[in-house]
């Protein structure tokens, strides 16, 4: 009950200022330089994926001639990963967010890639009132109440306003959809692993919850030690339970490849299912194509580039323009989200018309029926996209091959 009241209050608190903002006139320069920065893991195995996101951003900016109205748009590509960590790093993400905050020219922050990183930069950027658009965060606890701790997501909005938006469907859709997919493959029992990070543990819990609802037997759930080098003993333990499928909530950077190898080495024949954090070519490289061949299923929010091109419209236009500029169609699936983020940013700047952080955030919040490469969609009150498209792919001969569009059950 208390929770309901709190949630209602939170929603009211979010809507009220937005309603008042309708009438507010923002002031600020109408020409000059506006900076857009992105903060993505540019070091480590996510680099292949983030390369295409950055390409997508660059493409979107170039299409507009790097300007909006009288504003010149400058783009800076920040790295939130360190070589030492091999993935995102809280200190680096903090310093990126601080840098954006302190630079009066920065109006938009495109990022982050990892949901855990978003938790770090969200409160900083919220206080600074900078528009934050993420191409890849999928953890629902970032924006929706009742998914994480009780003070989430208000914890990330110290100013009380919504400045964080994302163009990608969240895991409260993806996790359950994966469970339905497993069920439709006539799988009877699953073993759930996760990497104990915001994204991985979050989606694994959601997957498991749905499995229990679907009467799919959950044989166990366990968090792995991401610093371990091998999981042979763990796999022996799982093998003894004879699961029909192993689900790993995690990313390529948190040892998905090694898990797959040790699964095969232990003689487990059950397939492996992973979420979009592993939907990148480096996952196949790190596990070895033969290990994953025909036994690795992956869910992803949206359509892979090949399907996008088949669908026509702005999606096809994006894939064609990308191919023209970079010589090949996007080899990773998140490119289009990078592109869409940049388009959202440019649209928000155009609507605002002034160089004023508050105005740009307010303009982004009012984006409705946005016609982008992903289709026509709107932001809801939480800053999430109302687009809920999920697709499933399978690894065949060292490539992700599109399998089917996954139905969303409400």
């Amino acid at each position, binding site marked *: 009950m208390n929770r309901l009241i709190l949630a209602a209050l939170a929603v009211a608190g979010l809507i009220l200022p937005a309603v008042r903002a309708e009438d507010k006139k923002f002031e600020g320069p109408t020409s000059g330089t506006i900076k857009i920065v992105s903060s993505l893991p*540019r*070091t480590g195995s996510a680099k292949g994926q983030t*390369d295409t996101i950055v390409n997508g951003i660059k493409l979107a900016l170039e299409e507009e001639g790097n300007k909006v109205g009288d504003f010149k748009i400058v783009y*800076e*590509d920040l790295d939130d990963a*360190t*070589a*030492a*960590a091999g993935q995102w*790093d*809280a*200190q680096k993400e*903090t*310093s990126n967010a*601080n*840098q954006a*905050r*302190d*630079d009066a020219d920065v109006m938009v922050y495109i990022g982050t890639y990892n949901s*855990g990183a978003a*938790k*770090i930069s969200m*409160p*900083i950027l919220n*206080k*600074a009132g900078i528009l934050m658009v993420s191409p890849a965060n999928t953890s629902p606890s970032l924006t929706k109440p009742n998914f994480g*701790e009780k*003070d989430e997501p208000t*914890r*990330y909005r*110290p100013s009380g306003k919504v400045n964080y938006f994302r163009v990608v469907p969240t895991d409260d859709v993806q996790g359950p959809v994966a469970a339905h997919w497993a069920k439709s493959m006539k799988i009877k029992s699953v073993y759930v692993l996760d990497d*104990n*990070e*915001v994204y991985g543990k979050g989606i694994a819990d959601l997957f498991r919850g749905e499995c229990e609802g679907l009467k799919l037997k959950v044989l166990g759930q366990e968090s792995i030690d*991401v*610093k371990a080098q091998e999981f042979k003993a763990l796999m022996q333990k799982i093998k003894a339970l004879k699961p029909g499928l192993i689900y790993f909530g995690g990313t390529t950077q948190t040892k998905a490849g090694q898990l797959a190898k040790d699964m095969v080495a232990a003689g487990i024949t059950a397939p492996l299912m992973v979420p979009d954090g592993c939907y990148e070519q480096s996952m196949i490289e790190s596990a070895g194509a033969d290990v994953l061949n025909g036994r690795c299923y992956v869910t992803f929010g949206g359509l892979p580039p090949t399907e996008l091109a088949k669908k026509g419209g702005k999606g096809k236009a994006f894939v064609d323009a990308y191919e023209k500029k970079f010589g090949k169609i996007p080899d990773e699936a998140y490119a289009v989200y990078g592109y869409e983020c940049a388009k959202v940013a440019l649209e928000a700047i155009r609507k605002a018309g002034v160089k004023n952080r508050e105005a740009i955030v307010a303009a982004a919040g009012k984006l409705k029926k946005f016609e982008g490469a992903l289709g026509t969609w709107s932001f809801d009150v939480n800053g999430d996209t109302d687009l809920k498209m999920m697709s499933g792919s399978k690894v065949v001969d060292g490539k992700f091959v599109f399998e089917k569009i996954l139905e969303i059950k409400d």
Partner: protein
Amino acid sequence: MSSGVLRKLAGLLVLALVITYPLIPGLNDKIESMLGKKIGDSFPTIFIYGILALALNVVVGYTGLLHLGIAAFFGIGAFTTGILTVGQYPFQFGFLPVLVVSTMAAALLGGILCVPTLRLRGDYLALVTLGFGLITVTALRNLQEITGGMQTLNPIPPPKIPEILRCPLESLGLTMSWTEDYRLFYYLTLGYLLLVFVFLRNLEHSRLGRAWVALREDELAATCMGLNAARLKLLAFTLAAGLAGMAGSLYATKMTNTTEPTRFDFQLSCTILSCLILGGLGNRTGVLLGVFLVAGYDFLFAPAADAWLQRNDMNPNDKGYLKFSMWNLMIFGLALVLMMRFRSSGLLPKRRGTTTGKGA
């Protein structure tokens, strides 16, 4: 004598520069626009590393024992601060009590660790501290019900500025917002660094400080003179752990989150150790010079140089070896090897006699 005066003068000059740097109007902005990179925000972190290095210096520099797990206490300080301040927990204490509790918590753990290691010497002691550091990181990561694990504790609120300080600070042109003005954290951390520096200077000249040096130079002789070696080691370890915990508390407050537990691993301990070796073991000024060189490369030079390369499109294919930040292990490693080989006492060696009295 004259070299001593010169040193003192140089030290005062640097101190004056560090204190006035943010107050000279436009200086930081000018440097930032030259570099094309915000740097003001990095100084507090460097000062915090300075405190951490001074803490490590208590054990390694004064008593000569090798400690390879200082980062663990830094982490304990950070996470204690997180637990006592974030919204998930009912505590939400103010800045000062949190700083004190974090310091005490780390000191207590440092003391407890020390008890079983008292009889070990040399390499074995180093290994135990290393192992302890790894166990701490594992515990911080796995006890996620308490520490948040890899999800970190976030956000940690900035300290409240007491009313009496507001007026003088505002008259210096500082904005009263921790997020908008880097200078608040600059002075907060610098203040604590100076406090620790002066405290350790006085300690060096005290009976305890002299006893540590005696222990380092010759343990057998020192015990024969009636010094209690076990008690002295215990004190050094506890003090170092406490100071590291205090640095950790400042760090978490500055970062507004605890950062992930794996940050406090062996590599950080080793980096801080390199600062000591590079600057001059046992010499406080030398240690700070070492920190400035190592952390300055890590936080100021490498990012600024990389941003410059990116802006000028000098590294279009994003090659690793064309990034300064990818070379830091090589540079620190070579620095350690070369220093040990050719100048094992560091850039600013400790002066003989200064710690044993004012005779020199």
